[in-house]
């Protein structure tokens, strides 16, 4: 079907509005309608990716207006890959979230699920669009829905979210300024059109300023190292089911926008030779990996540790972008996929432990391995993958990153990637030791704990087995999906 690039965001938008309208009269229908919208979008994304693998990139013109006049949606290997990833993680997280929401915030179910659908519509719009200003609109749709969803819950969440609002709005408005300057210089807002016009105006100062603003704006949204200040508080104080949905995908879509700018709009030639932006991104990412891994070792709160670990992992992706050669970009995209699976599993485990025992401090996790067997089994798989031990998938993305560093002749980056795996091992094995080797106090609530109910346990186990499966089949993914992306750019 040729209408697939439109069906993916539109089905999510429609399910958001219909769920809100129906939910004000009958509350129990909200969850099925939301789930229906997400399943429709996932099926459309998978069929779209299969069509792209067979036929090549699909272009879709909204309203029938061709590109310089109208808005264009592009479904190619990169956007199909990201769309399938985002919708799959969203499906598992929404299935996981129902019990958790019913326990924590039962009276706000209707606006919560509508906002989640709206946020997913915004994220898929960012992924699929081929128009620069349309990307800003969907970026703000996704961000505003995410702000609202993250502020529900306890006392400290609103303070964390107001700081996220201020910094996130600066980021989006810098992106808007950058798009404005591109429009002043080239007269067009379509990504393909700008890529065509750009080589004739390479020396222009407007384009230099535009690139600077866009990179800083998306670095704020992506939580690259010096601009990550909003992330730890937000990831620590949000409701657990919400953060299991947002943490794996929000910052990755920011990284996707940077990759799209690198591959399709400002061709890599410009970003490496005329204006050395990728060099700066690479060095900031390298410092960030080490600094954030060290910060994660120092944390006692489990979710705060996972938050600092998330910043370190997104710096791996930025390191791959900063290398700007084919192995680096393949490593970055593969790490986006792997990290989404690993972090979703980890945050769901943290939510499951909180659901059964109410604990979130690591010293109190003593002895959980005996009582919550399946949960801690999934945690072991995810921890092994984060450290980077084969055959779990984390090893392969770091392998491609190291190959990219060697290809670029940058030995400092290669040492950083390998040494940070040791730092990851320190903070994950510390938790594993507490969970398996230490026995609990007699009056601790751990002794009465059991695994979370099936609805919450099944997504965790699917993700954990997915981590192993992705590690085994990663050569197929790289050859079929990621290499065409890279060959079209370099």
């Amino acid at each position: 079907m040729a209408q697939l690039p439109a069906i993916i965001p539109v089905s999510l938008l429609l399910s958001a509005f219909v769920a809100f309208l129906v939910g004000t009269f009958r509350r129990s229908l909200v969850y099925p309608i939301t789930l229906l919208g997400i399943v429709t979008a996932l099926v459309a994304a998978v069929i779209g990716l299969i069509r792209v693998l067979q036929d090549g990139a699909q272009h879709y013109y909204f309203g029938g207006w061709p590109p310089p006049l109208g808005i264009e949606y592009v479904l190619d290997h990169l956007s199909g890959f990201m769309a399938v990833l985002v919708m799959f993680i969203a499906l598992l997280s929404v299935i996981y979230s129902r019990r958790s929401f019913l326990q924590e915030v039962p009276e706000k179910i209707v606006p919560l699920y509508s906002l989640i659908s709206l946020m997913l519509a915004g994220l898929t719009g960012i992924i699929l669009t081929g128009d620069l200003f349309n990307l800003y609109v969907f970026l703000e749709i996704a961000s505003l829905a995410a702000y609202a969803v993250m502020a529900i819950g306890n006392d400290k969440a609103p303070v964390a979210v107001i700081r996220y609002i201020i910094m996130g709005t600066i980021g989006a408005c810098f992106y808007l300024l950058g798009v404005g300057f591109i429009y002043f210089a080239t007269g067009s807002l379509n990504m393909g059109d700008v890529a065509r016009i750009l080589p004739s105006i390479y020396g222009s100062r407007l384009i230099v300023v535009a690139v600077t603003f866009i990179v800083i704006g998306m670095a704020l949204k992506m939580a690259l190292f010096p601009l990550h200040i909003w992330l730890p508080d937000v990831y620590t104080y949000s409701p657990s089911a919400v953060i299991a949905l947002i943490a794996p995908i929000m910052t990755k879509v920011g990284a996707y926008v940077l990759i799209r700018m690198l591959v399709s709009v400002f061709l890599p030639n410009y970003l490496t030779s005329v204006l050395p932006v990728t060099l700066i991104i690479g060095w900031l990412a390298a410092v960030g990996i080490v600094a954030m891994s060290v910060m994660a070792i120092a944390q006692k709160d489990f979710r705060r540790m996972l938050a600092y670990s998330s910043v370190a992992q997104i710096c791996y992706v930025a390191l791959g972008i900063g290398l700007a050669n084919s192995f680096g970009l393949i490593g970055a995209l593969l790490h986006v996929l792997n990290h989404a699976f690993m972090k979703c599993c980890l945050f769901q485990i943290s939510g499951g432990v909180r659901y059964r025992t109410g604990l979130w401090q690591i010293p109190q996790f003593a002895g959980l391995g005996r009582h919550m067997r399946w949960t801690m089994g999934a945690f072991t798989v995810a921890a092994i993958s984060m450290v980077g031990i084969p055959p779990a998938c984390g090893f392969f993305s770091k392998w491609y990153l190291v190959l990219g560093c060697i290809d670029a002749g940058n030995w400092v980056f290669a040492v950083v990637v390998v040494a940070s795996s040791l730092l990851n091992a320190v903070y994950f094995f510390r938790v594993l030791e507490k969970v398996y080797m230490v026995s609990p106090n007699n009056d601790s609530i751990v002794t009465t704990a059991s695994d979370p109910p099936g609805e919450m346990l099944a997504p965790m186990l699917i993700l954990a087995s997915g981590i192993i499966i992705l590690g085994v089949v990663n050569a197929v993914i790289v050859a079929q999906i990621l290499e065409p992306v890279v060959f079209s750019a370099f």
Partner: protein
Amino acid sequence: MIAKYKDLIVSLACRLMAPFVFLFGLYVTMFGHYGPGGGFQGGTIMASGVILMRLSLGRQATIKKFPLEFGPIVGAIGLLIYAGTGLVSLLAGGEYLDYAYLPIPSTSGTERQYLGILFVEVGVALGVFGVLLSIFDSLTKE
């Protein structure tokens, strides 16, 4: 937090002005084809008419005509009109939001696009009206 304004002149003047503000909002919505105007602008002016009534007459008097659930429901219906028009043209064989494929009888292609834009603008006006009213209601609750 919202109580009846004590002064008689203010209360009377607002009661006289509010219907005209609402009518002007409808005018701005419909006249977006020929001058500055359209969905967003008209919806905002319509919402400001109702908010003027809520501010000057108090919550008790206006709840009967515009209950608290009115804002979100009208907003959702308006946005569904917008998305639904696009969906109808998708189902009728064209692209999403391609108004030339809307199944309106006895009109030519360009007239269908003209009417399609009007439907979408009305949907957007209702949506913005509902959303702004619901923002005001939820910020001034209890």
